[in-house]
């Protein structure tokens, strides 16, 4: 149902007690800078903007390889909240290698299993924001592909 890498992350969080869930989210948040674009990388799409839904600028960079698999990089402004940083790492790692269409079709119910119902309840907008942005980039990419074929 989910891409394999994402499924592994979901399985990890599924069994974590609350304290360890928070610690693991913070660990993912710590690794968010590793998701930034690296020198020499080229992207099919770049979407860098500041939305009302987020405290600072978020950039999404999509590269689709010759096999049609997506690779994501992201940049986060300094004011971006910890939970958003954590979701950035989780989704960049978990969705790496999925196709843009698979990402676009991804149901969002896994977010609760990762973040936990309580954090989703109090920070619903934050928890879904990164996924929405990534899906947005994939949709633009697919629309362009379809137009190019037509």
């Amino acid at each position, binding site marked *: 149902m989910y891409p394999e890498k994402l499924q592994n992350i979901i399985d990890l969080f599924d069994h974590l007690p609350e304290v360890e869930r928070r610690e693991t*989210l*913070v660990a993912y948040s710590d690794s968010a800078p590793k998701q930034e674009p690296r020198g020499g990388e080229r992207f099919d799409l770049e979407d860098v903007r500041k939305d*009302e839904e987020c405290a600072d600028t978020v950039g999404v960079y999509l590269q689709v390889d010759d096999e049609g698999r997506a690779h994501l990089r992201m940049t986060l402004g300094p004011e971006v909240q*910890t*939970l958003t940083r954590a979701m950035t790492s989780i989704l960049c790692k978990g969705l790496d290698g999925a196709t843009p269409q698979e990402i676009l079709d991804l149901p969002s119910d896994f977010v609760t299993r990762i973040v936990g119902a309580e*954090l989703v309840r*109090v920070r619903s907008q934050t928890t879904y924001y990164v996924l929405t942005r990534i899906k947005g980039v994939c949709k633009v990419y697919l629309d362009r592909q379809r137009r190019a074929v037509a």
Partner: protein
Amino acid sequence: MNTNPTEYAHPEALVDAAWLEQHLDDKDIRIVESNEDILLYDTGHIPGAVHIDWRADLQDPVIRDYITPDKFAELCSRNGITPETTCIFYGDKANWWACYALWAFRLFGHRNVKILNGGRDKWKADGRKLTREVPQNAHTTYPIPVRRMDKEIRAFADEALAQSQANKPLIDVRSPGEYKGEITHMAEYPQEGVLRGGHIPGAKSVPWKTATNDDGTFKSAAELGKIYLENAGVKPDVDTIVYCRIGERSSHTWYVLTYLLGLGNVRNYDGSWTEWGNKVAAPIERSS
């Protein structure tokens, strides 16, 4: 303008980072971090600080209200707080949520409360130590408060209405766009289902951040006096009600008026605009 803390009405309600750094191990204080960013404490906090979440710890999970006195006693007990403990609050967003937590502690009658001037951001910007070590404080037995101080420091909708009708000071601390009715929530924040925009008739607009410097510290007593007493119509001998969207930003202004300017009759209308803007037949004023 240089800030001299001794010019505040209650300088004892404010500590600076240098002082706190020298008193981290004091037995009679408890440092309390309270943030908007729900995981920020976990990423690093002032050594010895405990975390109190404004929603999970201070609000009733079902009814829109604060926790009961027995829950407050439990909260304090598990954080090693006694009625004599001096709680020093700090947090992100220039102490928004820290002031909210402080106000909630006062609601339950906890007397010894202070704010770390500049909050978390200034502490971090100054290069002071943060740790991920969660303190293990011995449990205490905090007595259940006999009552909440709703009457003294909290206002309800009918009291805000009476304040408006009596032309007494009402301070709207939201952003100018919210005050004017152009938007019903802050930019960058979720729409929380408010049906009408505007402000309570007669309320003056003084965005909460007017009280702070760029580094999150409070402005001087003279500057604050000019903002609230000279320009916003707040009077020491007339009671004042402050409000925002859910009572968090207005807690910051409540702290400023109560502790830094020394007004003894300020109440926080925590129902604020998420209640007023949905309330059937509540009078609303809009301005351009």
